[in-house]
């Protein structure tokens, strides 16, 4: 292995890692959405099936590990963990973009009733809450309709922040494991 100042193109590795992670996140997100719709609204603010971590926590952070594994093995190179952090961030960023696009395709083209069913469930869940009517009204006004520009922007922004940070950390760890000179 050699440590080079002019490192090879890392975009193929970023795209592969983000594609794998983005598709996993999308599949889990859509599956958990169907589980939510199928469940009885109980008035809880939280639902066990309402998040993407339905199978395993921190699954969204694997992009940082995958991208460094692929990049280091593909080119047989070593580099500093700061570079790994950058690769992790980019992979996390594109994973969120891919996940958002897949979700949009699914909800607009494959199952057009998905968003409405999810929204109806959320409204029924608010109705089932044991709080004053004015509080329920505030909640109804606050909940954006799934698939609306506000909901998409919120999901996208929070995703980039959450996955971006976590994949920086997993990118550092991935670079240490796969791309660093061993001590």
């Amino acid at each position, binding site marked *: 292995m050699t440590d080079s100042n002019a490192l090879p193109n890392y975009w193929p590795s970023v795209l592969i890692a983000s594609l794998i992670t983005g598709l996993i*996140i999308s599949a889990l997100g859509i599956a958990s959405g169907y589980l939510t719709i199928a469940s009885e609204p109980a008035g809880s603010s939280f639902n*066990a099936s309402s998040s993407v971590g339905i199978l395993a926590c921190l699954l969204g952070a694997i992009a940082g590990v995958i991208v460094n594994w692929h990049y280091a093995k593909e080119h047989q190179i070593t580099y500093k963990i*700061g570079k790994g952090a950058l690769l992790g961030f980019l992979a996390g960023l594109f994973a969120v973009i891919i996940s958002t696009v897949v979700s949009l395709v699914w909800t607009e083209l494959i199952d057009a009733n998905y968003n409405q069913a999810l929204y109806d469930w959320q409204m029924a869940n608010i109705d089932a809450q044991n709080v004053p009517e004015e509080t329920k009204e505030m909640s109804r006004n606050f909940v954006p309709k799934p698939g609306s520009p506000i909901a998409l922007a919120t999901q996208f922004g929070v995703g980039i922040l959450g996955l971006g*940070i976590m994949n920086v950390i997993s990118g550092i760890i991935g670079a240490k494991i796969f791309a660093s000179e061993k001590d």
Partner: protein
Amino acid sequence: MNSVSVQQSRLFFALGITSLVLWILSFGPGLFQLSSESGIRSIQHHLFSWLCHQDPERTIHFHDHPMAVCARCFGIYTGFFVGLLMLPVASFWLKYRFKHRLALLIIVICLHFVDVTGNYLGWWTNTFASRWILGFVFGTACIALLQNEFFKKHGDIL
């Protein structure tokens, strides 16, 4: 005489601040005594929703509010932050090679799989404490990998 030199200090401090912020946010709205009676999920819960199942039955409650992450993830963030704080001291006193630290991480990951599988199959029931401890060890094991990246000891290594 043994000594420790600091490398990539900016990255170390950035990582320290990031892990501190993540750790504080993982406490959820209870840390700031924010009400969740409106049924609106807090920004902390939104932030971690991409990363954790946030099942309230598997989440520690803080000031009567569920934390933003499950007990296992809270242990991971705590272990990562504490491990980072201990890194300068650990770099001086602990003398394990990278392969040993990587082996520790792999063993801890395997322990998580065993714990989750055993719980799923009904062989045992894991608790908040057991999940938090395993998470803590995982977070610490991740940081242990980075030991010689930030603090290089000039002396013997086992």
